[in-house]
């Protein structure tokens, strides 16, 4: 199958501030300046032995990968560790990448696998989904902030009760707003199967949060 390029992966890239003074860059002859190298060029440079060029990929996709991991696990420390793991795995497997221009989507797919494995592992170890208590209804009072906080806590808990695959599909669709085609490429599913998975996730959440939907 083909992983389609995901332009939104550039969404989280931090802008590079302009230098205060015009600086004449020094380049190795024949090599494009780092900021102008395309993803495909960077991949080829890394594979040719320019290990430090991989840094550019971490800069370009670090924010997008970290943001997704954070939405999935809810902890900045864990999300950063998972993003780190994905980048290291990506480096190790870079030789197997056949479409260097799609390295961003490829790294995102690796991250999705790393996150899925993490959730399977940690939920098995720390949480028995079957013995989690039902999520209590919020104590609605005059203070709207309190109500909002309750809602947020409950939706976080509800997400943790989904299977990792359902949670991933739901977050990619309804939190990150990606298209079904993009998500299908990340999750290696048909669009029809993916729609069903998202639907099941919504049904599960609806059961857990009856008074909201």
């Amino acid at each position: 199958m083909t992983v389609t390029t995901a332009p939104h992966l550039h969404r989280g890239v931090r802008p590079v501030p302009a230098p205060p003074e015009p600086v004449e860059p020094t380049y190795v002859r024949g090599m494009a300046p780092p900021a102008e190298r395309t993803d495909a060029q960077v991949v080829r440079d890394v594979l040719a032995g320019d290990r430090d060029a991989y840094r550019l990929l971490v800069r370009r996709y670090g924010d997008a990968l970290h943001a997704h991991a954070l939405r999935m696990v809810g902890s900045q420390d864990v999300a950063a560790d998972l993003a780190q793991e994905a980048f290291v795995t990506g480096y190790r497997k870079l030789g197997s990448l056949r479409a260097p221009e799609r390295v961003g989507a490829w790294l995102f797919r690796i991250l999705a696998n790393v996150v899925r494995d993490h959730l399977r592992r940690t939920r098995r170890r720390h949480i028995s989904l079957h013995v989690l208590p039902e999520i209590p209804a919020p104590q609605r009072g005059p203070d709207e902030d309190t109500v909002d906080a309750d809602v947020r806590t409950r939706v976080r808990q509800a997400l943790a009760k989904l299977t990792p695959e359902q949670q991933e599909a739901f977050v990619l669709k309804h939190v990150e707003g990606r298209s079904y085609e993009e998500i299908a490429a990340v999750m290696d599913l048909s669009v029809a199967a993916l729609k069903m998975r998202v639907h099941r996730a919504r049904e599960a959440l609806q059961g857990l949060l009856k008074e909201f939907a």
Partner: protein
Amino acid sequence: MKDEDVRRYLDGETEMDAMDDQARSEARSWDRLLAAFRAETPGAPAPPWLENRVMARIEALPEPGLARRAWSWLLRPRPLRLSPATLGLAAAAVVALVLLPGRRGPAPTGDAGGAAATVVYVQFDLRAPDARSVAVGGDFDEWQGSYPLEDPDGDGIWTGRVPVKPGLYAYMFLVNGSKWVTDPEAAHHTDDGFGNRNAVLAVTAPAT
């Protein structure tokens, strides 16, 4: 019908205005709930230390292109000078290899044709009784693991056929969607340069 309308709305296949009042009300509830999910699960930029930690870790790893470069070097044609005696020994070795009994592994099951563009179906199998899913991926599908294997009788042997063109391919099995596993039954393996072994599959065009 209302549920179907709401489902289509949430999938982006219809607009709020196209639904009746009851479906619209439910759709608005969903909008509110999904907004709560988005608010509760914000993304955030990566911490500044991520880049340096990644670079520090990969400093200790072998270069990722090393295996491929070695593979290319092995496959690169080069002039070869052989004495008649050496040539005879090499021919004898080839004959001996051909006559050796075959071993279990991916078996080409090609149909007709012998041209380079001929597609040959290769059967893969892996014994993995505890697996929930098994797929195969390799040079032939850009390592996407896009060919699922099946275990219809539940005996733990996963099988499937993959159409490939004649050539030399490295491949592995993808178990449970995340774990790459080397084919233990492959006749040949190659080190990928960072601790894993890829199985090697040689596919020849079937004789006409």
